[in-house]
């Protein structure tokens, strides 16, 4: 996603190495994704579902 839009930054974080961050975002299982400090996505989702949730797009967005 970051490679496709210069407004997007994507960090992959090793949860056990950065425990403070993991606690801050209540990472109890992986993968867990946080977008702009507000959106939380648990688990690995299919591509479209993940992007919809990450970008906070409504479900009715034409697919």
């Amino acid at each position, binding site marked *: 996603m970051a*490679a496709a*839009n210069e407004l997007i930054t994507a960090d992959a974080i090793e949860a056990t190495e950065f425990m403070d961050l993991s606690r801050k975002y209540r990472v109890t299982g992986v*993968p867990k994704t946080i977008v702009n400090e507000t959106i939380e996505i648990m688990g690995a989702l299919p591509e479209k579902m993940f992007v919809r949730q990450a970008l906070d797009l409504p479900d009715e967005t034409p697919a």
Partner: protein
Amino acid sequence: MALLSPQDEATLKNHLSVITLPVQLVLFTQVFGGSESGDVAKQIVNEIASLNDKVTVVEKNFVLDTEDKVKYGIDKAPAIVILSDGINTRMRMYGAPTGYEFVGLVEAIIVAGTSKIDLDPETMKWIQAVDKPTHIQVFSTPT
């Protein structure tokens, strides 16, 4: 001792052969007070770079290279910033890239080195329509 087996090296070399653009892996590590994972990250990126001439490693000191930290927005170490022909792809990895993280690193290197993004055209439209700064953080573990 190498982290990659000769067989893994051969497989990885084959995967990386699609790269046409120079890829720089900017590695931030902390010499004092840093964790062992900085050494592991260093070994991993160097082993990857040894398999393809277009992939190079640029080492930075997390404490001393403050200008670069600001430039790439790095606030913790070890960190790897992936550049495509010198341009920041805004794909960063924090911690030693082992296990699943290793796969992610290799995929990110291939995206940076080919400028090809393997996503559904519809998904790409949604992503390209983003018009405000968006920070995605994905937490994972090596296993």
